[in-house]
């Protein structure tokens, strides 16, 4: 009879994997903490030995101190505001170039990616050359090329390159004709938001109706139509009915410049911060005898300026503007006024980011489309769908599932790469933070703030894209 001898004693604790796991983790944790403490104590000792303004301590008080430096673009920032606000201006500037960059890079990448799968050999190869050239060279070199090699080498203000009615290229920036929302347009903008909500509601109801009755059809189309109709009605009504504020007043300085504003406290003087400036309002200037000497439009900040007037202006009249106004850049003295002005730094950074990221996105789109099984194309052909329908209904929805995850990381890369702004002097988050460090010496705190900001960008973008990805993911039953 076979006797089985089960061990009656437990193995010694140093052979028990559960115990070993705990011991290992404890050792790891202790080593980690000791390393951390070693680094931290060194840092504290070194900081105490240094004698910078905020460097000696790890305090956050510098955030409320006066910055004392200006920021050349983005939200208005005066040197007497705090370091904390300077940092926020930097964050806004990063988002500005990031959001515009993401939109343009997606369009460029989509276009080039579809060209990459085109059956037209020439277009295919041209797109391929674009992708390879711009993916294989460093973004920094491209950025410096666009900035120092192209934009700064453009002609000066006086002999700017004109792009027909579209705008001007100069070495001081790119000035574009642009559509702006005017004073009366603000009302219309609010109406647009309402229309958008109504449009979405209509398409949701339509989808529910279609689903319940087992019908096929487009749910989006009625929603879009409702939105468009409401938007047009709103525009016409705003154009007819809106009027300028009761207490509109103007300030005229030196006979050729000034500000148009709503005199909130009705004292006749323009007081920044209290009175509200009026943007993109058509104005006419008259001289002493009542002759018209200039017509134009106020700018985004409510100011106007006319150099080269035949006589000093004495009086100004304004008209109620339509909700949208087209503003063309005009040479006034030593700079362009009106239109949309992009500084050389912003323009170079945007061009570099869009072209570089566009090449990566093109490759992602190409891979996504070629990942769709050839049989899907053939099956949809067999069903009698044409190329456009095949792409829209069969291929793209499937390709999107492959495209979205890498696309997300490209968007994040674009935002992170915008930190190269420091190479050309665009005041983004990172550039502003370096200025703050140079002035306060609060190295550790500012690095933590910068990293925290970039990490939260990553987190928010990933959350949104994960949500979107889940929405379009294959529903497996």
């Amino acid at each position, binding site marked *: 009879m076979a006797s089985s001898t089960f061990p009656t004693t437990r193995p010694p604790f140093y052979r028990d994997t559960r115990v070993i796991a705990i011991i290992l983790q404890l050792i790891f944790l202790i080593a*980690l903490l000791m390393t951390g403490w070693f680094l931290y104590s*060194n840092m504290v*000792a070194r900081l105490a030995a240094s004698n910078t303004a905020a460097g000696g301590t790890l305090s956050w008080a510098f955030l409320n101190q006066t910055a004392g430096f200006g920021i050349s673009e983005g939200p208005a920032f005066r040197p007497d505001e705090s370091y904390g606000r300077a940092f926020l201006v930097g964050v806004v500037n990063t988002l500005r170039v990031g959001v515009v960059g993401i939109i343009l890079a997606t369009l460029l990448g989509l276009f080039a990616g579809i060209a990459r799968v085109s059956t037209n050999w020439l277009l295919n190869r041209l797109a391929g050359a674009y992708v390879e050239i711009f993916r294989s060279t460093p973004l*920094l070199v491209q950025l410096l090329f666009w900035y120092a090699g*192209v934009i700064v080498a453009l002609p000066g203000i006086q002999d700017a390159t004109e792009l027909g009615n579209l705008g001007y290229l100069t070495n001081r920036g790119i000035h574009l004709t642009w559509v702006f929302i005017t004073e009366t347009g603000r009302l219309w903008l609010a109406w647009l938001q309402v229309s958008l909500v109504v449009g979405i509601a209509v398409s949701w109801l339509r989808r529910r109706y279609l689903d319940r009755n087992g019908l096929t059809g487009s749910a989006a189309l009625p929603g879009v139509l409702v939105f468009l109709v409401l938007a047009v009605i709103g525009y016409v009504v705003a154009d007819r009915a809106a009027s300028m504020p009761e207490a509109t007043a103007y300030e005229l300085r030196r006979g050729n410049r000034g500000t148009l504003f709503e005199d909130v406290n009705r004292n006749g003087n323009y007081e920044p911060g209290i009175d509200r400036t009026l943007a993109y309002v058509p104005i006419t200037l008259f001289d002493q005898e009542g002759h018209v000497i200039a017509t134009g439009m106020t700018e985004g900040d409510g100011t106007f300026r006319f150099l080269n007037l035949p006589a000093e202006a004495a009086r100004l009249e304004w008209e109620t503007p339509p909700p949208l106004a087209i503003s063309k850049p005009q040479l006034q003295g030593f700079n362009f006024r009106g239109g949309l002005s992009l500084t050389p730094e912003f323009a170079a950074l945007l061009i570099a980011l869009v072209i570089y990221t566009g090449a990566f996105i093109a490759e992602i789109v190409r891979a996504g489309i070629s*990942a769709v099984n050839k049989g899907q194309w053939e099956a949809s052909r067999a069903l009698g769908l044409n190329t456009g329908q095949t792409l829209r209904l069969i291929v793209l929805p499937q390709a999107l599932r492959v495209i979205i995850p890498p696309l997300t990381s490209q968007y994040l890369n674009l935002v992170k790469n915008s*930190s190269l702004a420091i190479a050309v002097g665009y005041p983004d988050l990172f550039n502003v933070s370096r200025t703050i460090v140079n002035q306060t010496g609060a190295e550790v705190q500012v690095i933590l703030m910068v990293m925290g900001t970039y990490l939260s960008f990553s987190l928010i973008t990933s959350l949104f894209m994960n949500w979107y990805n889940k929405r379009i993911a294959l529903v497996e039953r």
Partner: protein
Amino acid sequence: MATEIRSTTWVNTNHPAPAQKPPVTEVGLIGWLRANLFSSVGNTILTLITLVVLYFIVSGLVRWALGAFWQPIWENRKLFAVGLYPAAQLWQPAAVLVMVSTLFGLSAGRWGSIMRNLGVGLGGLLLLFAIIPIGMEAQLVMAASLALLLAGYFVGVRVPIASGWLALGWVISLPLTFILLGGGINLPGLGLRWQFAPLVEVNLWGGLMLTMLLAVVGITLSFPIGVLLALGRRSRLPVIKWFCIGYIELIRGVPLITLLFMGMTMLPLFLPAGWGNPSLLVRAMTAITLFSAAYLAENVRGGLQAIPKGQYEAADALGLSTFDSLRFIILPQALTKVIPAIVGQFIGLFKDTSLASLVGLLELVAIGKAVIQQPEWLGTPGGIAREVYVFIALVFFVFSYGMSFASRKLESKLGFGKRQ
């Protein structure tokens, strides 16, 4: 009763008509053009538009390239190659080049695959620079390196050198490069000082040499860290797992430039006061290594996830310890799978080293900026920024595209990325 079967069967006694040639419009050049460029009205319009665009791009580029002012680049070729490295000691970088070429040749012959593809590219570059009159001595070095590359290849093919020895050679070559370039060993922190030539301070190293060095050191040092992080991320021990996840996601969530600046200003803070401040090069390399490790960990994790569960179970069944199963079963398979991804990461890192110019290292881009500022070119109409940056972009392009081409050939050989 015999039935004449033949009588009821129809047989075509005529020979089939001779095969006709396909119409000229369907084959050859015309057929190719019709199929690829003019298959429909829309396609024809597209072709014409593309041709016009292409004409403008190409003619503009050619006109610019012919009229451009390339003299500053030609005259500063030494600066672009090695930076401010003392001219009298240029034999030291030359020795490094010779050493690397030999190792490359041996590896290409012994291992083949991607090393052979890369070796062909290296050989082409060496041949090019042996022919272009960049200077007699430099050309001789290039020719000698080329000869050793080829000799190494044939030796590698014929002689079965142990892979371990070859790998050891590569491992030793890295510190040897530092000793050769530095002219000796100078570590005041450890009280070590030995020299065979006048010591060359690291702040004199520059140009393409420094760019290469940063990328190679970055990927090499980050390799063990990255593998450990990847294993840690898949560990069953929560503390280790969450530490690795935290590290990887933190590093991947911030731009390299923040890490570089952090390395520049905060790395010295973290060291005891007695150790002094590490050189700029060491700080930049630390930042690049820590950055690269997080990305490498994700690549390696991809390889680990691609290993079937059965391999782990089989290793366990054989009674291998965790370490042995990783060493003999899991890692060899996982790392082979991720070679193309690691080459891709090396290309990215190679491009990213350009950021070191922003923290004061004289790599290629910083040299370019310095050349633009040279007083003798300041009067040039339009400046020379365009020429300099196009040249630097070209240098990066040749290496990056060359490596990605080699890697793609390997991928298609391994059968990755093939569908349908």
